[in-house]
Structure formats: structure tokens, C-alpha cells
């Protein structure tokens, strides 16, 4: 009897193996892995969804398959028109030999036009669908997402998604993009309402056009994405950010503004500033600036308008001096620091005015405000988002030069 029982168990166990094909099991080569999704307003239907699907043989390089030449793209792009993203997936499944899988999707590109009109929550799939996760990067593209995806040429990397991912790391040393913009940040910020989101903003560099700097800033960071005066290199520019109010996009911030935003969010790590030389207005001084003390925000709710006073403490290292002034001397150093403070504060005021114009608290002062309210009901009664545009916001910058590099006085010809 026992033997029979054992045999039955063994048979059941052996039967388990063939059963393994029945439900969730799928081999790697049976799935089409979408690495990036682009969403635009559709012509015939609500959306045009573009899938960038990885081509394993060409992308993996090496191996026995052999890497393709320059004209062989490692990604396969296909666009579908559908009322929802899920519908687009289902339609794509019909003409692809493998099943579309969103498990490795890294980035979501939204065309600017769509972002300005209908916003995020009509694409509920990314929150609800189990394959999509909230760590997907949320990037707004200048122009249509499908054009962006078609035109992407990373050049340094084979895999465009790795390229994008690594580009997002440069916030640590330039500070010109948002510190993080994944779907999770977007959704949480919109949902809780303490701040409004800023997302990555990307554009393709058009060949042959070199636009001049926008605005009055003479520094190197006052450009929007796609407008850096350069030639050569990958044609993707991820710079600045797209500012949202709620779920709709309201404006574009350039690299300069993004730095100020990061400083006011206490997330600025380091970045290079070139300011006008206080002694000679046609030359520049470059400094690497990083954050000193943490940000301090004082909120005063007593008056009719809320008053916010933010204090930013920065430290710097002198990198280059073009004139022959020796800024290592104490009075000249103080002058330089003063000039830097002035320049940065001016840019901060520009930024704050921009955001107040758009009436959106992307900087995140709401997070400091909410700490003054004891209950949720009180906070909701106060209606901070509506009061933002009339708030009195003052920003103070403190700056100290700490290090001066390997040279004290600039090397100049003698006798001058």
C-alpha cells in the first residue's frame, strides 16, 4: 500500500513537469521586450503609441550572432494608434511574432503637445498594470515622441535606454535636470498636492541650427533642451525640465532654472557656474559650486499672503579666472563672492517669477508649509496651490569660496 502511495506521488510529481507549460511560463525568446514607450496625440484614435522593442541578437553584440553594423539598429520601432496604451499593446501583439512585455521598459516619452493637454492620468496603465512599474522614467519630449524615438542616435552606447539612464545620472555633477523623475514621483506629487512635478525634458538636436542663448543670461546653462550651441556628439539632449501644474504641463524650464530649483529643493549637489568678472564685464570667472549647509525655509502665515524666506548656503571652488585679477586676496575674494551671490539670486528671482506666472509650486515650498498645519482638514482649507501666485517669496544666498585650485595668482606675463 505504501509503495502504491509513493508511486502515486512520484507520478504526480513527474506530471508536474509537463504541466509547466500551461500557465505563466514563457521562454525568454518568446517575448518582445519593450524598452521604451512613446505616447503622442493620435490622428485617428486617441493616442499614437510607439514601442521601441529590443532586438536581442543585435543588441547583445558579441556572441555567436555577431553585432550588426552601424546601419543595423538595435531597436525596432513600431507605432500603433489606439484609444488606450493597453489597447495599443494588444494591437501590437497581433502583428508581432512575440508577445509584447513591458517588464523591462525603462522610459516613457510623452510628446509635449499631449503633456500640455491631457496629462498623465489617462494613462492609468502605468499605475495599475502589473507589468509596468513606477520606476519608469517619465520624459517629455519636445515635439512628437515618435520623432524623438526614431531620431535617437546615442553613439557612445549601443543601447539607447542605457544611454538615457546614464544621462539621468549627470544631475549629480551638473544639476541641470530634475533630481528624479519617475512615474512614482509624478503620481505621488500630484496626488498629495504638496508640490507640483517637474519631469525630464528631452529634445533632438537639429542638425545645422545653432541658436543663440535665450534670455539675458550669458552663462552656459541658460539653454533649453535642443538648443545647446554645439555640433557633433549624440543628438539627444536631456536638459532642463518640464513644469507641470497638476497633471498638465505648463512650461519649460531651462538648465539655469533647473539648478535654481534644485538649490531651493535642497537637492543641488554640484555644478559649474560662470559669472561675469566683477572687474571686467567682458570676461568670466568659473567656479564649481556645491551645497554647504542644508536649505532653510522659514514660513510665515500671519499676514494675508503667505511669506516664505528660503536661505541657501553654497560653497565654491575657483576653477578659472580669465582676467588677471588675483581673486585669492581677501577683498577681491569678497567682491567675487558678492558678485556670485548677486548673480545667483537674480536667477532665482527669475525662476520664482516664472513659476508664479504659471501658478505652479514646482519648487516644493508646499512641503515646508504643510508642516505648519495640524490636521489634514486645516491644510486642505488653506488651499496653498491657489495662493502660490500671490505669495511673497524671498530667497537669500550665502556663498563662500573655499578652495582655489592649484594656482593662486593667475599666471600672467611679467611687467603688467
Amino acid at each position, binding site marked *: 500500500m505504501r509503495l502504491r502511495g509513493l508511486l502515486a506521488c512520484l507520478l504526480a510529481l513527474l506530471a508536474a513537469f509537463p504541466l509547466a507549460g500551461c*500557465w*505563466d511560463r514563457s521562454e525568454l525568446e518568446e517575448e518582445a521586450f519593450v524598452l521604451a514607450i512613446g505616447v503622442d496625440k493620435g490622428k485617428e484614435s486617441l493616442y499614437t503609441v510607439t514601442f521601441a522593442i529590443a532586438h536581442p541578437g543585435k543588441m547583445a553584440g558579441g556572441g555567436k550572432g555577431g553585432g550588426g553594423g552601424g546601419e543595423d539598429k538595435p531597436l525596432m520601432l513600431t507605432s500603433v494608434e489606439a484609444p488606450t496604451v493597453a489597447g495599443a499593446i494588444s494591437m501590437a501583439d497581433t502583428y508581432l511574432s512575440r508577445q509584447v512585455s513591458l*517588464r*523591462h521598459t525603462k522610459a516613457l516619452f510623452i510628446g509635449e503637445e499631449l503633456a500640455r493637454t491631457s496629462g498623465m492620468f489617462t494613462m492609468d496603465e502605468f499605475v495599475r498594470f*502589473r507589468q509596468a*512599474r*513606477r*520606476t519608469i522614467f517619465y520624459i517629455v519630449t519636445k515635439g512628437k515622441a515618435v520623432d524623438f524615438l526614431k531620431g535617437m542616435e546615442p553613439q557612445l552606447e549601443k543601447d539607447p535606454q542605457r544611454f538615457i*539612464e546614464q544621462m539621468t545620472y549627470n544631475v549629480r555633477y551638473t544639476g541641470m535636470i530634475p533630481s528624479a523623475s*519617475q512615474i*512614482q514621483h509624478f*503620481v*505621488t*506629487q500630484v*496626488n*498629495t498636492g*504638496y508640490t507640483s512635478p517637474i519631469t525630464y525634458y528631452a529634445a533632438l538636436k537639429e542638425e545645422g541650427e545653432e541658436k543663440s542663448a535665450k534670455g539675458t543670461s550669458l552663462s552656459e546653462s541658460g539653454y533649453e533642451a535642443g538648443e545647446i550651441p554645439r555640433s557633433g556628439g549624440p543628438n539627444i539632449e536631456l536638459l532642463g525640465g518640464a513644469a507641470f501644474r497638476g497633471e498638465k504641463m505648463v512650461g519649460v524650464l531651462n538648465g539655469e532654472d533647473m539648478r535654481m530649483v534644485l538649490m531651493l529643493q535642497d537637492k543641488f549637489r554640484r555644478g559649474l557656474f560662470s559669472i561675469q568678472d566683477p572687474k571686467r564685464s567682458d570676461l568670466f570667472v568659473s567656479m564649481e559650486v556645491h551645497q554647504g549647509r542644508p536649505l532653510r525655509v522659514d514660513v510665515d502665515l500671519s499676514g494675508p499672503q503667505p511669506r516664505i524666506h528660503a536661505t541657501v548656503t553654497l560653497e565654491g571652488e575657483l576653477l578659472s579666472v580669465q582676467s588677471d585679477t588675483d581673486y585669492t586676496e581677501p577683498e577681491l575674494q569678497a567682491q567675487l563672492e558678492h558678485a556670485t551671490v548677486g548673480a545667483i539670486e537674480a536667477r532665482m528671482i527669475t525662476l520664482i517669477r516664472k513659476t508664479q506666472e504659471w501658478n505652479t509650486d514646482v519648487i516644493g515650498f508646499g*512641503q*515646508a508649509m*504643510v*508642516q505648519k*498645519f*495640524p*490636521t*489634514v*482638514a*486645516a*491644510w486642505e482649507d488653506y488651499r496653498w496651490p491657489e495662493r502660490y501666485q500671490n505669495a511673497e517669496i524671498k530667497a537669500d544666498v550665502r556663498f563662500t569660496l573655499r578652495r582655489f585650485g592649484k594656482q593662486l595668482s593667475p599666471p600672467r606675463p611679467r611687467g603688467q
Partner: protein
Amino acid sequence: MIREEGHIGLLEGAVLVYAILSAKLFISSPGFLIEAGGPAAWQAALVMTAVGLLALLPLGALVRRFPGQGLFRISEEVGGPFLGGLFTLYVTLWFFANAVNGVRNFTETYIGTVLPNTPPSVLTATAVACMVYASYRGLESICRATQVLLPVILAGILLVLVFSMPRLQISRLYPFWGHGIMATAAGGAYYAGMVGEAVILLALGYSFREVKQVRRAGMIGVALFGLLTALTVAVLVMIFGAPDAAQQPFPLFNLSQLVYLGRFLQRTEALMVMFWFFNVAVRLSLLFHASVVSLTGLLKLPMYRPVIFPMAVLVIATSLLPEDSLVVLRIMRDWLIPAGLGVLFVPAALLALALVRGKGGQSHAT
């Protein structure tokens, strides 16, 4: 009566209580707390812990008056056959309902998150097979297995919380008092029903080596659970924000999907899901075992093993009753948790009756 069970000690008891309670963290319980308390949900969690600890005091005293006896014997002795039987039936039914709800909830969670195409009957059958086997081997086996698996269970929660640290934003914990102190306290007290499983110590208290360890084991387990709940809820609020987190049926799973540390440690939620399974399996096994043992006592049967198989079939059948995954959650929130509050007060009621009627040996109290 059921002497083949073996003996458990203080640490085993505490681990038992902790494991049976902490499986709730992986389904919607944090969501409920956040719904009730808003940003101050962690305070609600602490209130819940306090109520649970309070309810353990009469339990400890009760077990000390009737050492070595299970729930059925105590309630029968204290309340007479009819009233005592009612108490036992209430608690047993509550354990059973929790086991059933747990099985269904677990099936829905797993299908919803990692195994979409698998038919629910397969998952249910596997879970019930684990439960049946564990209950068959006895309480000692389950306790020892829990002890062995404890590092894995703790790692399942703590790793997720630790890896989510880069995303924490303290400002989301404000406004500090949430919806107000009264609302928080009321919510916390209501959800104290979640700690009702601590009464399993009453049902299984006869297995302890020393009676005075029962209360201590329960307190350690409940305190640990309460602390971890407060921590989890606080982290969830800090990452998702209170309104969003309340709308997630499995907030910890979403949290584990967010783990993103550099290029290597990404998308590891399936591994966390595996760690959670151990916790869920232990909880279901213990609930099932407790209801089987209590039912055996109620029906005055000499052995509990034959009751396992009919009960298993009953569990599978009842677990298919709710229509969809949300009904399961609502059943838990609107029925099981308030009933759990009642279960928490059963030891107090029994103790009061025992004092009034003068039953039980005080000399045994150590």
C-alpha cells in the same frame, strides 16, 4: 487531550504570534490604517498595539488560572456547556474565517501581482496543501519551522523598507495629527481587531512549558508586530503619500517594485514575493491548525488529525465564495476586523466570569 503536540517555549511563542500577525502587512492592512489615519497612520498603529497589549493582560491571567488547558476546556468550565460552547465557537469561527479569507486574499494577491495566467484553483490548492501538511505534522513542527524561517520573514519586510530609504520624504508625514487626534485614536482602536490573532495563544496555550510565559510571549509578539506596522506605515506614507497609499490593495508589493538601487538592484519584487510567501504560509497553517484543534475540542473528539481533511475541503470551498478581489478586502475590513475586536475581549469576558463564579486554581498562579 492532545498530548502529542509537544512543548513550546517563550521564544517560540513570541515568534509564533509575530509571524501570524505580520503576514497581514503584505496585503491591505497598512492601506486600511492609512485610510483611517491619513498621514498620522503610524500613530493609529501605535494605538492599535496598545489596545492589543491591554487585551493580553486578561489572557495571561486566564491561562494562569487554568494551566494546561485549551480554549474549549476553559470556556466550558467557566461558562458552562452552552455559553462556553458559544465562546469557543465564536473564536473558532473567527479563526476559520480568517484562514479562508487569508487563502483567498493570498490567491488574489499572487495572481494580481506575479502569476497572472494561473487559475486560482491551482494557487489555492497549493496553499491548502501546505496548510494541511503543516497541520498534520503538528504544532511543534510549525513553531520550529517558523523559527528557522524567521530571518527570511524579517528580511522580507526589512529589506524592502531599507532599500526604499532613498525615496523617503519626511514632509509627507505632515500634517502631523492627520485627521485629528480623535479620528486617529478611533481608527486605531477599530483596527485593533487586526491583532485579534494573538488570542491564538489561548487556543494553543496548553502547549507552553510554563504558563507565565504565555503572556510574555504574546506581548513580545504583539509589540514587535506593532512596531513593524508603525514603521511600515510611516515608510509607505513617506513614499507614496497618504491619499495614494490608501488606495493600493497591496502597498508593500508596490513598494518592492520601486526598489531601484543603481543599475543592478532593480526589479527584484519577485524575490520579495517569495520571502513573503513563507510568512503567509506560516500564518495560514497556524490559523488552520488553531481552528482544527479548537473544533476538535468543541466536538470532544480524541484526535485532531482526521478533522484536517474535511476542514481543508471546507476552506477551499468557502474561499471561492466572494465574487471578486475587492469583496475579499471589504469582508476583511467590515466584518473580520470588528469581529476580531470582539475576539480580543473574549479572554477578558472569560476571566470576569471565572472570577465571578470562582473557578480555576489561583494557587497555580506564579
